[in-house]
């Protein structure tokens, strides 16, 4: 009971993050670091970057999952004590980026880890990262949703795509 209370009420105000780069270009990593600096100061929300995954509550994963990093990233995940939350930072981590289909890249972070929250952007602005964390912590609402637009086509009949069909769209 006490533990549930602590996790729900205290943990969001003291989120220690461990930053894991899985093959990123540095852009996201620098922005993650930038979030700690005076203009954005993530520490005011209790967010702290820690050096050992044992101390972490959240994993910030950036970059596409390369074949070489995947096992190491899995070990990082295992080394984090429960409860833990995984953030995918940047377009590479959310969807594999422009290397999504190259021979050494497995795809986005969710190919290897159970990702809880995604922060797209290339790189995401520090504000976007803050927004992502704030959204995950329930401080601000989510602002994106699927865009689905159909041309106003006079007399032509429109066939609505079935939900499952939509998802199949060649997302290799």
């Amino acid at each position: 009971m006490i533990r549930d209370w602590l996790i729900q009420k205290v943990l969001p105000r003291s989120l220690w993050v461990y930053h894991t780069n899985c093959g990123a270009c540095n852009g996201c990593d620098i922005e993650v670091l930038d979030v700690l600096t005076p203009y954005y100061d993530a520490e005011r929300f209790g967010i702290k970057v820690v050096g050992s995954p044992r101390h972490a509550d959240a994993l910030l994963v950036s970059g596409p999952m390369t074949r070489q990093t995947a096992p190491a990233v899995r070990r990082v995940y295992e080394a984090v004590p429960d409860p833990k939350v995984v953030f995918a930072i940047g377009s590479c981590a959310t969807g594999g980026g422009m290397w999504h289909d190259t021979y050494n890249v497995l795809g986005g972070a969710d190919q290897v880890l159970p990702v809880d929250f995604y922060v797209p952007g290339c790189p995401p602005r520090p504000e976007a990262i803050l927004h992502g964390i704030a959204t995950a912590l329930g401080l601000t609402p989510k602002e994106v949703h699927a865009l689905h637009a159909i041309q106003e086509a006079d007399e032509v009949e429109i066939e609505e795509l079935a939900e499952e069909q939509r998802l199949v769209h060649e997302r290799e």
Partner: protein
Amino acid sequence: MTVETITERLGQRVGEALLDTRTHKETRLYLTVDPAAVVDAADELFNRMQARYVITAATDQRRDHGAYLITHFFSFDADDVYVAVHTRVPEGNPRIDAITPTVPGAGWAEREMRDVMGVEPVGHPDPRRLVLPDDWPEDLHPLRCDFSTADSPAPVTGMEMPMKDIPEGAVMVPVGPYFPTQHEPESFAVFVEGETVVGSDYRGFYNHRGIEKLGCSDLTYNQIPFVAERICGICGFVHSCAYCMAVEEAAGIEVPRRADYIRTVFLELERLHSHLLWTGVAAHIIGFDTLFMQTWRMREPVMWLCEKLTGNRKTYGMNIVGGVRRDIPDDAHDDIERVLADIEREWTALAEAVPGDRTLMARLRDVGYLSPEEARNVCALGPTARGSGKRIDVRIDHPYAAYDELELSAPVEEGGDTLARTLVRLAETPIAISIIRQALARMPDGPVRAEIDEDISPGLEGIAAVEAPRGESFHWVLTGENNRPARWRVRAPTYANLQAIDAMIKGDVLADVPIDIGSIDPCYSCTDRMTVIDRRSGQMRVMTREEMLGSRQTAEHTGT
């Protein structure tokens, strides 16, 4: 030394084996030599003529020539000449004499050649896998044309890179792949006795994303700049700029002068924010978080400025073959000047405070020593080389963009230690500010982008080098068919500088290792690869982990 003298002296050395010579604008020399003479040619260039080795590229030309094209690049920095030594290795016998014993800095490049193209460097002292992941099959070489980008072979086991054996009485400290001071995955195995470093091993290339493969077959000329700038999240503009310049040189495209100036402005803005960033990261590494916070606070307006000017905080999306995509409007000059003035004021205070800070000096002085000889051997670049007394700077040696019309200098320190590299960066920052001011003041009017009407014909070569904040970024493009390059080779400065780490950290203590590594401002994603070359290769025993465990057990059995 002019292209003529180089050709002449090489001709004297290798004679008939010099098959072909082409020059371009008196600053580019393309030679073709017989495979048997490639070591002699490298020796003549590197050891006799004191050229700087740049990189080796391997190209699959089996369809056209029935051979693999191996190219070693050298640079005559004082004379503004890049030399490419082409060799064709027949496809039936993909083996070539390794130049590493002659040119130590080629160690990684030849290992990479073996990995990605399957051309065996014969006589290489350390022929371990470099680039490909541990679970990659031995006989598959991704840069060959018959390998498709999207192929991802089933994982195999037992291919872990064999590690050097741990010296007696030492412990292996795994600095990475995930380590707080490394913002990217890469794995230094540092062997320490007590806390004194007695050796190291390296397994990098965790960030290998197959960029060159994308650029060699899949993407069109104008898609690549966007891939190129994502080679590195800090010096992205450098890569897209160098790539575009290489294509422009190959295709003979005249870039409007205004575009050159705009590129110069952004290159220097990038250097500015990169050096501020580095100062902060280095301070963070040695636990000086206040300095980290303050330099990054100073840096943030540059990022906002870049976002305003380019639409992205990282200056992504500016370069395109033929020029740049956005102009710098005249009303932005004031904004730029305001940001520059702020930084200049604060930076001056900082640069004055640093040498007087005794605790800071204590951490920087006399650690991570890189001798000038070592710097030349590993072909160190940028501030790393300039901190060891080597005056090389592409902006001055091989002027590009608008640098030929601007005044600049390259500060050099003789110390060779971490402090020297720090001082070089401290001195470079105001120079970058001055260059931006000059460029803005002298910027000519006109278009920012050349119209390209004709297709780029295949078989042309272009070399471009840009002085990134970390040193020379080298791009070579060989044009191909279907609006796509046949080969695009990138050599980021960290690729060369990283090979100096082993020498730099040896004898230091563990506490200095992070700042030693940090002092070359490593960018692993640029390098896309890494391992420390071992100059004692003769004595080095390479064992697999299994062998090692086995031998330890035997040792215990026999009571040694």
